[in-house]
């Protein structure tokens, strides 16, 4: 088995190896606890290496498909009977995020859960959740997406209720499974509608044959509302603060990843599957020829603009409610959870602006064989900011949750009223918290600044009021976290917390990994955008390439 074989099989192996690891964990756990932890870390590392290999290949060679069971992707070049994984830049980008979160979460949970029972099942479920996340991210089949969505949600709701001695944790888990199973059933119903019309389940085949009929609109509404339930967008956000706040910190880190996998679903469905319907139905405003390339400016379809505005309104509500609720929380983890809600709003805002923009420009490259469709102007930069913000949000919010977990381990306290003066005894944790604070509130020189600036700029061009609301929400986030910094880390020492010790090294190491990535991203955002973000944006906007990736075969 040489390296090209590994690259070829990597889409399947990225999902199959965590699954195999999860199935083996109960057997490995019979031998030794330490061996089990090492085994879990090993599985995560192997998966991450495979993700790196795959991402490298996809960024340099373009879309890669994998057919389960062998054979050509399509029969008679018109319909797919087998399950396909289709990995383009966006999938690879999401897989990179998931792999970072995976490794950090497993390293962090080594000492975080030291004195708890049920760790065998904990590691099994963590690996299953990881497999589900990667499956959601990499799959190219609608029903397969639904199956992995269910794996992720079932594993995560069991993990949310890890502290079974607390009633609120169980309550959070129950809320999450109710919301997520209803959302998943909406998605399944929408898949049924799409299947009845096009007799296809494959995403690329659907994208090729979608006609945006009335039933398609219903299916789109059901898909977006189902995924919005899973992603915690505002009318259906009530599970999110509970679940994020009650779960163990290492699980919350992965929950952030699972939420973003659902957001990725919204991106993929609106931009790729419905991309053809959204982009070919507008009227041509003007056409010009520029250095051999024909440039056409097309007005967006009115329905698309209204979809965009619905998404923008939801995003603004998510941001405002998240920030305002975060201001009045006294429980540290719930506070960070509401901040995470606000951050989800920013990601949704970018895609909303993309659809709400009045026109888009399409470049027809006549000197090349295919038609490349690219977008210029603020809509594409909004999407860039939104996609860049996905990775930044995962890192920033993840780091803050890990710090909250570290504080809980050191002091056994989560209420801000009972904390104070931790900076003297927990130097490293304080430093990590300050890094997370600066990053999450979008201040230079951390990574949050770069992505939020792109979102502000593009949103301001669409409508200045929305841009101002986005900036205000960010300022309020800064206020929230400065309050936390002041009440938990600074100030006089509280007598109960005199002999607080720094957390163990493995937890510091896990936080350090994320902090390093945040600083690197913050110092060199242009390198990151050029190498990771731009391929993802190009891939997600180019629905033609997504369809071609399956239809011509590789």
């Amino acid at each position, binding site marked *: 088995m040489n390296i090209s074989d590994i690259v070829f099989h990597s889409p399947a192996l990225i999902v199959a190896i965590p699954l195999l690891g999860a199935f083996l964990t109960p057997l490995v756990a019979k031998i030794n606890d330490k061996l089990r932890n090492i085994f879990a870390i090993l599985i995560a590392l192997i998966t991450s290496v495979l993700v790196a290999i795959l991402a490298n290949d996809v960024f340099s060679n373009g879309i890669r498909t994998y057919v389960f069971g062998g054979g050509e992707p399509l029969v008679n070049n018109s319909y797919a009977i087998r399950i396909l994984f289709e990995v383009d830049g966006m999938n690879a980008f999401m897989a990179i995020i998931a792999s970072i979160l995976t490794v950090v979460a497993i390293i962090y949970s080594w000492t975080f859960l030291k004195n708890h029972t049920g760790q065998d099942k904990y590691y099994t479920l963590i690996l299953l959740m990881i497999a589900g996340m990667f499956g959601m991210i990499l799959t190219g089949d609608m029903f397969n997406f639904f199956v992995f969505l269910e794996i992720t949600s079932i594993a995560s709701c069991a993990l949310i*209720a890890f502290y079974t001695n607390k*009633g*609120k944790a*169980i*309550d959070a888990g*129950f809320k999450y499974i109710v919301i997520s199973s209803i959302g998943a059933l909406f998605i399944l119903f929408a*898949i*049924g509608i799409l*299947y009845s019309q096009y007799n296809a389940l494959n995403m690329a085949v659907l994208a090729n044959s979608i006609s945006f009929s009335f039933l398609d609109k219903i299916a789109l509404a059901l898909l977006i509302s189902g995924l919005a339930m899973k992603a915690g967008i505002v009318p259906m956000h009530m599970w999110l603060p*509970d679940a994020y706040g009650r779960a163990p910190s290492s699980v919350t880190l992965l929950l952030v990843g699972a939420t973003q996998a659902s957001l990725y679903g919204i991106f993929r469905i609106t931009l790729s599957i419905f991309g053809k319907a959204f982009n070919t139905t507008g009227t041509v405003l003007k056409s010009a020829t520029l250095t051999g390339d024909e440039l056409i400016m097309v007005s967006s379809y009115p329905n698309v603009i209204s979809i965009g505005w619905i998404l923008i309104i939801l995003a603004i509500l998510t941001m405002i409610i998240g920030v305002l609720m975060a201001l009045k929380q006294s429980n540290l983890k719930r506070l960070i959870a509401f901040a995470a809600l606000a951050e989800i709003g920013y990601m949704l805002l970018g895609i909303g602006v993309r659809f709400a923009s009045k026109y888009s420009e399409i470049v027809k490259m006549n000197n090349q064989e295919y038609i490349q469709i690219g977008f210029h102007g603020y809509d594409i930069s909004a999407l860039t900011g939104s996609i860049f913000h996905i990775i930044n949000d995962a890192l920033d919010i993840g780091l803050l949750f890990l710090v909250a977990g570290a504080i809980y381990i050191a002091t056994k306290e989560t209420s801000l009223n009972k904390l104070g003066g931790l900076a003297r005894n927990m130097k490293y944790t304080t430093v990590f918290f300050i890094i997370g604070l600066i990053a999450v509130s979008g201040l230079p020189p951390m990574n949050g600044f770069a992505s939020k600036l792109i979102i502000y700029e593009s949103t301001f061009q669409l409508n200045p009021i929305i841009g101002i609301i986005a900036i205000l929400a960010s300022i309020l986030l800064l206020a929230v976290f400065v309050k936390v910094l002041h009440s938990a880390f600074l100030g006089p020492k509280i007598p109960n917390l005199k002999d607080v010790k720094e957390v163990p090294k493995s937890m510091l190491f896990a936080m350090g990994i994320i902090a390093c990535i945040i600083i690197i991203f913050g110092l060199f955002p242009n390198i990151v955008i050029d190498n990771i973000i731009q391929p993802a944006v190009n891939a997600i906007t180019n629905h033609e390439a997504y369809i071609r990736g399956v239809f011509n075969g590789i």
Partner: protein
Amino acid sequence: MLFNFPYIAVVLLILIGLATVIYKRNLIKIVIGITLIESGVNLFLITLAYRKDSIAPIFHGFTASKDNVPFMSLPVPHALTLTSIVIGVAVLALMLTFIIHLYRHYNTLDARKIGREEE
């Protein structure tokens, strides 16, 4: 319109389930509502599989060749329904587990009285 009666039955089943989930406060009733939605969706998928005068997609007692394949109902929705039923069982098991634990903690099944205590 009337020939779409199976789909209308499916939608009614889903809506009854959704109304139960939204308006009932008893946790067991919420779970029953989710199960109703799930049955509705499964019924929807299996309804899509049917074609008029078709038989089950099993080659039993005859050898199929390319020219005498009988008129069968669609196999893919059957497969999807099988998968979604098992997923439903898993979700149901987990939800009932949560309810058992919630009842132990709070001694009630009323959703309004659960998770409201001060820490």
